[in-house]
């Protein structure tokens, strides 16, 4: 084995004529936190499910912990943990019963089961609440419990499919801390998200769009590689109107909306706020409340990439 926890080779999944995952290639190093980013419907879940051995690829193959998803899905299942996008625990069972069930499924019993149960409870901060019904827990805590249960058998690789979606920002933070603890213990973590800012918590990431990988690398490398122009954040009362107005302006390279804010990647000659401010004024842009030069985010990268492909 090459030291890679996962090797993906031309992996493809079609549902009828629709290509959900389109011949993708990537690899995940042992012990890293690997981010899987993309908008809704990009094909993240489909890819993860193929890697877990529960969805047969249409063509191509992938090796997880050295086993082929095509020919040895059962061996893969013994070496991975998985947290599905939908809530994966039983609402009508107590916290303890959920833990014991999944422990039993992975063959834990006796002292080992008690030891792991205590670990899960502790990491989800639920010690002392063993008999509470799982359905009564708030979203963030539930997700921590689900993560603990997904790794109850201490698998070398764990797949987390949008574990933080619909969770408040503070819980998301503490969830990521838990992921880092796991990673520190040597577990390879593959995590999907559509919160692009969460990529900052990952080592390597891939960006997926419409079944294809559009970019890969570390978050900072991606930013350096794709955004070479100065980026300004413009706050305005009427963002859509402004966007239509300056879309075709000579100083505009790339433009994208974030609520009532707008990110403008400008030609290199406009490097300060006052330079771009006067250019906008000359072009007749109105109602501008504020302009700042910003460090581009991964969001800018992503929008730039997806836009480029569309053109």
């Amino acid at each position, binding site marked *: 084995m090459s030291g890679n926890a996962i090797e993906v080779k031309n992996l493809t999944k079609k549902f009828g004529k629709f290509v959900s995952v389109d011949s993708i290639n990537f690899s995940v190093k042992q012990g890293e936190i690997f981010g899987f980013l993309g908008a809704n419907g990009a094909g993240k879940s489909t890819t993860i499910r193929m890697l877990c051995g529960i969805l047969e690829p249409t063509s191509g193959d992938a090796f997880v912990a050295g086993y082929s998803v095509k020919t040895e899905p*059962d061996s893969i299942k013994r070496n991975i943990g*998985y947290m599905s996008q*939908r*809530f994966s625990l*039983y609402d*009508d069972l107590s916290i303890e019963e959920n833990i014991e*069930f999944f422990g039993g499924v992975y063959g834990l019993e006796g002292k080992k089961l008690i030891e792991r149960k205590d670990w899960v409870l502790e990491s989800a901060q639920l010690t002392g609440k063993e008999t509470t019904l799982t359905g009564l827990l708030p979203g963030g805590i539930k997700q921590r419990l689900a993560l603990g249960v997904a790794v109850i058998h201490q698998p070398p690789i764990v797949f987390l499919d949008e574990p933080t979606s619909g969770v408040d920002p503070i819980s998301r933070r503490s969830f990521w801390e838990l992921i880092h603890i796991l990673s520190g213990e040597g577990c390879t973590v593959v995590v999907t998200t559509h919160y692009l800012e969460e990529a900052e918590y990952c080592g390597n990431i891939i960006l997926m769009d419409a079944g294809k990988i559009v970019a890969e690398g570390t978050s900072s490398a991606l930013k350096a590689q794709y955004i070479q122009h100065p980026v300004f954040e413009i706050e305005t009362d009427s963002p859509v109107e402004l966007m239509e107005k300056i879309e075709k302006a000579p100083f505009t390279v790339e433009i994208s909306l974030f609520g009532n804010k707008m990110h403008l990647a400008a030609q290199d000659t406009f490097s300060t706020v006052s330079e771009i401010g006067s250019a906008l004024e000359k072009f007749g842009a109105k109602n501008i409340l504020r302009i700042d030069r910003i460090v581009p985010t991964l969001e800018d990268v992503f929008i730039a990439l997806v836009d480029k492909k569309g053109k």
Partner: protein
Amino acid sequence: MNLRRLKALSKKEFKHILRDIRMLSILLIFPVFLLIVFGYAVRFDVENINLAVKDNDKSQLSSDFIKSFIHSKYFSFTKLIEKDADVKIVLDEKQAQCVLIIPAGFARDFYSNKNVNVQFLLDGVDGNTATVIYGYAQTATASFNNALTEKNLLRAGIKQLKPLDVRPTLWFNPDLKTTRFLIPGLIGMILIISGVVSVSLSLVREKEKGTIEQINVSPISSLELLVGKSLPYFLLALFDAALILVAGYYIFDVAVKGSMILLIFSTVIFIACAIALGIFISVLSNSQQVAFTVATFTSLLPSVILSGFIFPIESMPLPIQIISNITPVKFYIVTLRAIMLRGAGLSAFWQQWVYMLLFTSTLLTLAAIRFTKQMKNN
């Protein structure tokens, strides 16, 4: 099959059942309800039939004959009719359900070996009851006849020779007790409905909630999943069966004549049929609603209409007789009636076992294949 995984699955499923009122009522309350409704309300038993008598002979023999009726536990004597005209009134006013009319010269004709006709008038409004009463009257007459003929022949010096011994004995169900006849069908019907409906909901619920995904990604195999999840339902169904039998014994006086071991084995095999059908429906459906509807339809209707539970299969038109083979209840009822009413051994019903085992294994195999495929492509 890994026992530890099976145990974990069964334990979990058992807890789901305990916390689910709907499931609990399908498994425990519903059977009791059906038992009571069918056991009491649909009782065809006829006892204490009101009998009036018009004796035109007034001989020792005629009074013996009347006594033989009255002393049987089925008839209770209400009235001795004097005038011919009163016969009609007694029946019309429902003072009696039937009237026995003994002709003048009854004893004389009998001893001179002539044919004797006794008239027996019946209120035929309720055809079912009338048939039953008619059966009792025939039985009573025949046994009286036999006793007398024997005595007659003896008197004539012909000893112990019985040229003709007509004894219309009602086999297997000597009292024409319909409860006795119904109980096997009732057990079959209750077991299949509660088994099929509950099992079909259990798997589809995991599909609906998405928890099935977490199971699929674990080392649990399809077969382990299906078996592990069904085990608690299996045990509860056995408990139901025992409950009905005990109730049948204490409330309706239906005892098991044959081997208890054979009865248990037959029931185990039959519950396996019900569970296989439940699993099959569960695999094919994608929502609990669909599963519930299909399960109720496929278990309730055939088990009432086609199984021979109430309507005898022999009197159905041939095409329907053939269709009746789709329900395992039919085969279970044959088995149960053989064991409970006749005390018959395995040789009387082994074919039914074979059929039920075939039914189970076919459905389970189809379900497992379909399920494995489904999980790989969705």
